[in-house]
């Protein structure tokens, strides 16, 4: 099961990294969200995977590691705040600059591509 879990974390990371490398703000936001899923899962798994052993004290005495969970819990909430901040920043950027490119302007490589395809810039 650990292998499947690790595969999922790796895949989420890869998808997240690919999207953060895109040029438009919304893709980057989605990429960051995917990356934060991956990071949270990664941190969570540092307590090792355990089934039916929630860290709520009871008579069984078999518990999973509560510390990574506490850390990930706040990370999820803060991750939301950060995503929100980036999204609003993206909107503000588009409102002030007139485009939604991460650099605030369409770089020349892309305008060259446009010319190559017969667009008029």
């Amino acid at each position: 099961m650990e292998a499947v879990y690790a595969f999922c974390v790796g895949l989420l990371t890869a998808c997240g990294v690919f999207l953060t490398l895109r040029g438009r703000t919304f893709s980057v936001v989605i990429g960051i969200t995917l990356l934060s899923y991956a990071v949270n899962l990664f941190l969570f798994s540092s307590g090792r995977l355990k089934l039916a052993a929630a860290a709520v004290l009871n008579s069984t005495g078999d518990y999973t590691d509560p510390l990574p969970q506490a850390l990930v819990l706040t990370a999820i909430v803060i991750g939301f705040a950060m995503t929100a901040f980036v999204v609003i920043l993206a909107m503000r950027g588009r409102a002030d600059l007139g485009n939604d490119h991460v650099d605030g302007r369409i770089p020349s490589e892309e305008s060259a591509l446009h010319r190559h395809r017969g667009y008029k810039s």
Partner: protein
Amino acid sequence: MSLIWIPLLPLLGTLVPLLTSRFGRNVCAFSVAVLPSVSMVLALLTAPSVLQGETIQYHAKWLSSLGLDIAFRMDGLSLLFCGLILGIGLLVILYARYYLSSNDSIGRFYAYLILFMTAMLGIVLSNNVIQLWMFWELTSISSFLLISFWSHKSDARKGARMALTVTGAGGLALLAGLLLMGHLVGSYNLDDILNSGDLLRDHQAYPFVLFLVLLGAFTKSAQFPFQFWLPHAMAAPTPVSAYLHSATMVKAGIFLMARFYPVLSGTELWFIVVSMTGLATLLFGAYMALFKHDLKGLLAYSTISHLGLITLLFGMNTQLAAVAAVFHIINHATFKASLFMAAGIIDHESGSRDMRKLNGLWKYMPHTAALAMVAALSMAGVPLLNGFLSKEMFFAETLDQDTLGSLSWMIPVLATIGGVFSVAYSLRFIHDVFFNGEPIDLPKTPKEPPRYVKIPVEILVGLCLLVGIFPTYIVSGILAAASSAVLNGELPEYSLAIWHGVNLPLLMSCLAMAGGLIVYYNRRHLFQFQAQFEDQDAKFIFERWVQRLVNRCAQFIEYIDNSSLQRYIVIMMVMALIFMAGPLLDLKHTEGARQLLELNGVVLTGAVLLSMGAVATVIWHRDRLMALLMLSVVGLVVAIAFAYFSAPDLALTQLAVEIVTIILLLLALFFLPQKLPKESSPKRITRDIAIALLIGGVVGTINFAIMTRAPDTISNYYLENSKTGGGGDNVVNVILVDFRGFDTLGEITVLGIAALGIFKLIAAMRLYMPSSDETGRTWSLDRRPLILSVISQSLLPLALLVSAYIFLRGHNAPGGGFIAGLITSVAIIQQYIANGVEWVKPRITMSYQWMIAGGILIAGLTGGGSWMFDRPFLTSWFDHFHLPIVGDFELASAILFDLGVYLTVVGATMLILANLGQLTTSERIPSEQH
């Protein structure tokens, strides 16, 4: 009396001219001289014991653990330099009173000058090499200010910049050298370093230390090939040239060589590098000086040549050569300072420094002429003057060394040639200026200067004569003390007599005299020869090099910092990849020894869903709504995964956050383009996929490697103490609000700050409101669905009840402030969605900002409350109570803290979403109007 006052008094003195300049130039000059005079007296008071060979120390602890202390030492070498710095400094103060015109800000000039004096005193007195370096840099800065004193002149600005760049760059090399030296010795204390000569010389890093320290010394002392800045520094007022460029600053490099002579010299490398540099500088300076028409230009090159001579002496492998070097430091300072002063007088009284115009001044200013001629003859090395004595010693030492092995005979020959040119330019100084016909259209008719200004020149020239005629009475004491400091206590036999009988050095002197006469007599031929060379202005060459360097740097910066976020992220990712993958290469087995879980259908289904969701998000990332839907699939699977792997708190949080996030992103999509054109080139896509897959693979591998190894956890402490210490069964919650409450306090603060930042971003946003979607369909203006609004209104109390329940049970079962806060937010957001902003606004009147502030305040005060019971911050308290109907229950102070968390989460989430949502409605229009 403590040593520290010697540099400290002039430092205080920098304020004096600024305060007294308003009372007139005379008051200013005299008040400025007071503190350095006191310093001079203090220095002289130490003389009796220093001349006995004692070293006086001052030590004050500062950052001792870093090797930084305030430490001063006074030995023979320091005393000699203190005498030069303060003595000539006082004369220059007097001289500058005459030289500066009433238009110049004399207060500012004196302040710079005294600052420079402090810095020089600091260098020669420091007993800590880092402290020494700090004063070293201070001389660079204060000399920059002095050279650029007439900052309206382009020459002055360029010259100052060049001097600062060259000496500053050398200073950096010196710092590296000193740090290395201190590191090797294990102490930055000069005493310790001076006693570690063998250790340093035998160390394999010795060449680096030597190279770096010499780089500092050579740039400061204008040694070849760094000599070019000195002639351009002549744009400074002449008192500055007389002080900095004859006696003090350029001698700082020489001082450095003398200071570290006991530790760095004595190796082949030292002798070759130092002697060859000195020899090249000596010849170059002496030759070039002859062709300068500017009086100060001639003196500048002559200074370069004499500095080369001293360097050459330090580079010869005899102890006597070091004595001769020290002796020449004294002699050069006296005759060169007086010559600069004389040149300044001539400039001031005749309005020109051009030797083609200045002729026959003997008739107009005989007194000044006599003084200048004596000093010039000393520079030429004529007997009965001090220059002769040290030059004679120099010639003797060139004969007595074997630095170059069988080629050592070249050094005396080349030294004699240097002597020839030295005599020739000295003759030119005397003959061209004071004789050689009549002045040619000078701006002013030359006349004698005021009486008092000749006093400093007379004192210096008098010293030249006294040292030249009675060397044993005047200088032998200080020379012996300084030389023994340079040689670390060993003093060779030498005699300071004028007449040593007919010997080779005397013959060399005679040859130099005769040769100089001949060269000067035939100077027209030489001038013609020299005129064939293209006259290159070092200023322009230097500026060009600087410009080229700046352009290169700009190109490099343009490459790494092209304000493209994508470029930055790529660089960051690749670096992360390198650092992550490196250690993995050394890891032999990916899989550890831990017992693994069995794979089952549930997990496999979840994994397939998650993978499909993630990949679909990427594939459809240009169709944004689809991407968002796929993203929410991933989020839900993550939440389920948390629930499955024994983390109910995380599952609840993730679920609630997922809802809030997707609503947020949907709102944002309204203001962002719905679809995107294909814009990345195939090449870039391929590159990005490669980077992404590599990073994903590495992260997955690390994750797998961690999970398959047995944990080494600190959590047992939390599990054992959760009930007894924190009063709760839910260990995750107890960690959040109790064990690591301080972390949580910080985190909710961050949450609040992020929300407020978003609030500010939204407040000033000028958005355009799309009137239709991208296919041209206009927005529906229908009323909100009735059923939805009725149901959600009736759901609200229920949802709030649930969140209260989740909140209260949080300490003992999955739940708590974070989760309850998110549930409350979702319930309120649902009202916004179902009923619209205009419906919610009058009904929920509380301010979300206040809610955030109140939440953080409550959490903070709960923490602070434990101080009242003399407990550390955030210590929790709990107890069990019994109420009739309710039964047994527990109260913990942590629940108050959790209330703070709850309020902050609700406030932050609502502040973000409500304000963003408001933008999409007619409610935002009033806010746009003002």
